[in-house]
């Protein structure tokens, strides 16, 4: 896309020197796949531009995950050292933090729909001759990208928690983060479409995000839990992002088999060990379902 052209570029075959008062007429073509892709791209780009303009957000959404990682991780180290078989608690929590850092940012991105509605900008997009699905998809991709950028920052911290910088590991973690970010943004958009005020959205998010975070196994191994917590843990979608993330990270650590058994037990369904790929599949499937619901809801609103 050229951004630095002037009037001379507009009429290749027309008069050599266009008069200053000449009227440049454009036209709006019929809806095609190309125009929908352009719409998706510009909605996506807008999310990035806004993210770049709002550097505070980059910092604020990272504060909480880093608190958990470093303060909780260091603070509880001594209490838990007996159970971690010599593995640092920070190392254990790290995969969970890789997930929630992305999750918090993705939620924030989805909130921009509520924001846009409050400030009227949503209307500008709603009246455009494009499919509503293009707007939703653009939003979700934008949210996923922004969250992915946040994720990279957390990936960079791996060395501080004794996790090696292995290219395969980094790529795998980043891929998982993108999947999760997309699913969470879709979930956020699905919720945001129905909500008209920022305060209510933030309230709903607090109500959803924190329980999801706490029951997901980001802070504890998901085996040998009390029955009620096991049920909640298996129902929590975030579990299926945290667990493959932990398996991935732990597969690149050199630790004792005992530690691996205790800290990376994996998720079971009625005794059956769920493969990591299926877990990632759960996230993808949930993301797509929520995206579909979000599109459906968004298309119905006027």
């Amino acid at each position, binding site marked *: 896309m050229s951004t630095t052209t002037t009037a001379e570029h507009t009429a290749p075959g027309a008069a050599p020197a266009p008069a200053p008062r000449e009227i440049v007429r454009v036209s*709006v073509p019929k809806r095609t796949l190309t125009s929908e892709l352009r719409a998706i791209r510009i909605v996506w780009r807008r999310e990035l531009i806004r993210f770049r303009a709002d550097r505070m957000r980059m910092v604020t959404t990272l504060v909480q995950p880093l608190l958990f990682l470093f303060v909780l991780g260091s603070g509880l180290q001594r209490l838990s050292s007996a159970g971690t078989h010599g593995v640092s608690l920070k190392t254990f929590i790290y995969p969970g933090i890789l997930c929630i850092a992305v999750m918090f940012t993705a939620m924030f991105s989805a909130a921009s729909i509520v924001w846009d509605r409050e400030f009227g900008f949503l209307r*500008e997009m709603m009246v455009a001759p494009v499919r509503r699905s293009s707007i939703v998809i653009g939003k979700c991709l934008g949210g996923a990208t922004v969250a992915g950028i946040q994720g990279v920052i957390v990936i960079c911290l791996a060395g501080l928690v004794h996790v090696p910088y292995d290219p395969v590991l980094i790529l795998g973690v980043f891929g998982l983060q993108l999947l999760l970010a997309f699913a969470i943004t879709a979930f956020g958009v699905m919720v945001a479409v129905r909500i008209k005020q920022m305060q209510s959205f933030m309230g709903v998010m607090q109500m959803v995000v924190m329980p999801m975070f706490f029951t997901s196994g980001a802070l504890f191994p998901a085996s040998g839990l009390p029955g009620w917590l096991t049920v909640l843990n298996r129902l929590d979608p975030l579990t299926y992002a945290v667990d493959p993330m932990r398996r991935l990270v732990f597969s690149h650590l050199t630790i004792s088999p005992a530690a691996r058994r205790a800290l990376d037990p994996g998720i079971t369904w009625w005794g059956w060990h769920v493969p990591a790929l299926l877990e990632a599949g759960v996230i993808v499937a949930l993301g797509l379902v929520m995206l579909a619901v979000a599109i459906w809801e968004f298309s119905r609103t006027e």
Partner: protein
Amino acid sequence: MPDLVTSSEPMATTTRDGAAPPATPTAAIAVNGLAKNFGEVKAVRGVEFEVATGEVFGFLGPNGAGKTTTINMLCTLVKPSAGSATVAGHDVVRERDDVRRNIGLVFQDPTLDGYLTAEQNLRLHAELYGVQSSLVPARMEQVLTMVGLWDRKDHTVATFSGGMRRRLEIARGLMHSPRVLFLDEPTIGLDPQTRRSIWTYIRELKEREEITIFMTTHYMDEAEWCDRIAIMDHGQIVALDAPATLKAQVGGDRVAIHTDDDQAAIAALDERFGVEAGVAEGAVTFSIPSGEEFVPRLFAELGMPIRAVSVSRPTLDDVFMSYTGTTIRDAEEDQAKHRNRVMMQMMTGGRR
């Protein structure tokens, strides 16, 4: 891109990209028995009118009269409860997309992204509407220059004043060369100077682009800028014509004279001209068709000295008064206000 037209001459009235011809060849907007109910509230009760291509058409009425609901139906934002309408030759219900491709919208409430610069806002609009990328920079320069914001294109909108934002919204509404531009209260909440400049842009726009402008306002003085106006009250059109014609229908001009002996003057007026006069605000006042032409006769034939004379034309306020029996301000202050509030609740609750 086969159908891009870059021309300094006004373009002939052609249908762009081979779309179906409008109901009436010249009508940019044709409305038939259009009505909208929000539950029990009848916001619009069957309006009919046509707007010719190239016209500046104004919708005048107090808040809550149904202007915005009508404009929203024409913009495909609200589905009519009854009746039909075509805009730029396309049905607002069945060909929603075609209507949207051909109209520009400037809403009552701001719809800009304050985080983006003026240029980014316009570019986003152009991308959403699928405007040919090669033409975007030139078109952008044109519309921004027209509203006097070209030198501010790289500033974020958050730093703009209310008037600048409104101007930018108008520029954005024009970005995709719409055939019909809808302006819902484009000057509401702006200071008189800015209002005037916005009207200058609108008139200039009409001169330069082949465009039809449909707007609502509740400022009487602004309606004077329109080619034709429709006065709306309680969801119905009570009068529709050129401002001058409407004012002419109200009756004659108001003439006020100051004399040394008011009673003698009143008697003389009755006797020589058959005019019934009264004293209002300390002056002998009467109503007469074409008052300016009457003044020379008055001086010549009244037979007594006149110290001062003033002639005033009927205003649209008088027009509004004669059709609705109330002034627009009074109409806004009482029941309409209440109704508007109820309607807003229903609209925000039920629509989005």
